[in-house]
């Protein structure tokens, strides 16, 4: 059985034969474990790495565009799917870090790896603000629908505020905030190199940077949610009162999950801004705030892999619909959401996994996942 397999790995790890954190990749809080899954994973990553060789610059750049959103989705999966806190704040941190990156790089340029420092600072800004907001929320014992409304309000305050920064007096250094039209013209992420700096425009090199980042982020989160920290998060989600009555300061755990998840949203914001060299207040509007909820709900919010696949699926479907079906794209999207909630409430991916499991059990084979 799956649990025994995991326990065996943990026992091996505690005997010193495997580093403990490696055992955590296979833990109880994530779908997919064992050699079959990981072989499939490695093959997918290799396929993704080889993909640019068979495709043109535009398509690769477009796929890179999809990747920029994944950090935000995984962050929400952590906050909502694992810790049980519905946050509408991802869009706020997305915009905050995006704008911060723009302001810093427009003021200081791209030389000497400054854009990389800008990335770190922008994400750090989101972390700091998330820590403050999280303290306010969780130590104030705000939860459930109220948490959603407060985080939504924060996001809308940001977007409404930024939307009215149109006048020339709204400038930070040399960077004009520009109201509804948003900020443009900031330099892309630029890697300092011996022969000459490499700017990462929306093309193959940026694609690889994003691919590596996505893989690292995914693996890192897998380890986190399967660790003791992750165990407590899930306990808090399932029964916060019981978790507290076992001696855990649940506010601290929720805060940490919130900061990590919101920082990931900030990372998405920076990548998005650098991908297209623009950021606008609509990235923090009502629709933008609801989108991560939709991806995560469709994919399967209680699992990282499900969220990852679901996000890519929704983004790809939506883009294709907009191109080929134009007006009907949103109608289809709406119908998809309703169908998922009514028939596959745990999400598309877990639902399919269960269906496949039931089929294979029906054929008399043992369940392997």
């Amino acid at each position, binding site marked *: 059985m799956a649990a025994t397999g995991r326990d065996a790995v943990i026992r091996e790890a505690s005997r010193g034969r495997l580093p403990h954190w490696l055992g955590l990749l296979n833990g109880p809080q994530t779908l997919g474990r064992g050699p079959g899954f990981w072989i499939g994973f490695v093959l997918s990553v290799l396929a993704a790495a080889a993909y640019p060789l068979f495709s043109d610059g535009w398509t690769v750049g477009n796929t890179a565009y999809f990747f920029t959103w994944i950090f935000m989705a995984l962050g929400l999966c952590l906050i909502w799917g694992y810790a049980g806190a519905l946050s509408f704040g991802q869009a706020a941190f997305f915009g905050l870090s995006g704008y911060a990156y723009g302001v810093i790089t427009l003021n200081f340029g791209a030389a000497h790896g400054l854009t990389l420092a800008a990335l770190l600072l922008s994400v750090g800004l989101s972390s700091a603000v998330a820590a403050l907001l999280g303290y306010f929320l969780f130590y104030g014992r705000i939860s459930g629908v109220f948490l959603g*409304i407060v985080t*939504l*309000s924060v996001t809308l*305050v940001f977007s409404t505020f930024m939307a009215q920064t149109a006048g020339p007096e709204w400038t930070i250094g040399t960077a004009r905030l520009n109201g509804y039209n948003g900020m443009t013209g900031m330099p892309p992420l630029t890697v300092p190199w011996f022969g000459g700096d490499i700017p990462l425009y929306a093309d193959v090199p940026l694609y690889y940077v994003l691919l590596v980042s996505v893989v690292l982020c995914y693996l890192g989160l897998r380890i986190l949610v399967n660790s003791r920290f992750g165990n407590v998060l899930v306990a808090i989600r399932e029964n916060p009162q019981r978790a507290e009555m076992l001696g855990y300061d649940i506010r601290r755990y929720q805060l940490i999950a919130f900061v990590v998840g919101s920082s990931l949203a900030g990372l998405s914001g920076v990548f998005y801004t650098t991908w297209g060299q623009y950021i606008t207040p609509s990235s923090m509007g009502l629709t933008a705030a609801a989108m991560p909820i939709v991806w995560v709900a469709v994919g399967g919010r209680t699992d990282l892999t499900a969220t990852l696949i679901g996000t890519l699926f929704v983004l790809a479907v939506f883009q294709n619909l907009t191109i080929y079906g134009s007006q009907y794209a949103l109608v289809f999207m709406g119908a998809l959401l309703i169908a998922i909630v*009514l028939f596959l409430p745990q999400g598309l991916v877990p639902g399919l996994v269960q269906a496949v499991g039931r089929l294979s059990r029906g054929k008399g084979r043992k369940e392997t996942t």
Partner: protein
Amino acid sequence: MEFLHVAFSAFYQFGDAFAFLVLSAAGLAIIFGMMGVINLAHGEFIMCGAYVTVSVVRLGVPLPLAIACGSLAAGLLGVLLERTIIHRLYHRPLDSIVATWGISLIITQGTLILLGSTMPGTSTPLGSFSVGGFSYSLYRLVLMAVAVLVLVGLYIGFPHTKLGVHARATIQGPQMAQALGIDVGRVYSLTFGLGAALAGLAGGLYAPTMTMVPTMGATFLVESFVTVVVGGADVFLGTAPAAVILSMIKAFMTAWGGQLAGQIGLLIAVILVIRVLPRGLSGWLLKERS
């Protein structure tokens, strides 16, 4: 004299904001309070009411009757949606967010496809009057009166109607209500329809003051939401006080810095109120009581 002018202006601003919040939140409050459903398609019921009202007015029907038609249309749409989709979402607030957002997308986009990106509207009736050199819309005063009437109706009238009594029983305990012979399914449908009809009423009432676009519901959505949530789970207890507090702050901030300042002020007020009262106003009031 000067003071009276300023006082009137302040009263008007407050009343205007209050009317907006009450009218837009009433329907949502009933649905959230009764069924634990967060209805993100609320804006679309409002839009439905507005569109039907305007279309009927253009056929020559007087405005009040047209508004009634709009409200009825929205109510019927609500009952239809409840029977098909919503009844499976009771007391699943997070799931209802996703599903009703899906409904919202379908209705908004569907309206865009069928009726185009805009529709000719109708003008604000009753003209204006002036106090102290500023002119005010008389229609907006009418809206304030309607808002108060709606509140009175809901608080005093509704609990005495048969549906009202059944509805309160069902909120308190659906299984118990069923054991007493109440057709709970029917109560839910009618109550949802009532919530939708109230939304349609708001749409119809504000239609003469707005442009007819399929996304017009969004104007009402956020503010009605925050009002309901700040009010807390017991909507009969919390929504009205929430509307009072939030509209005071919004009116003040709008007078100070313009419309966007008003919106920002409202949202910040929401954040602060929930911080102080993590279960909303009714949660706090109920704790004090029992």
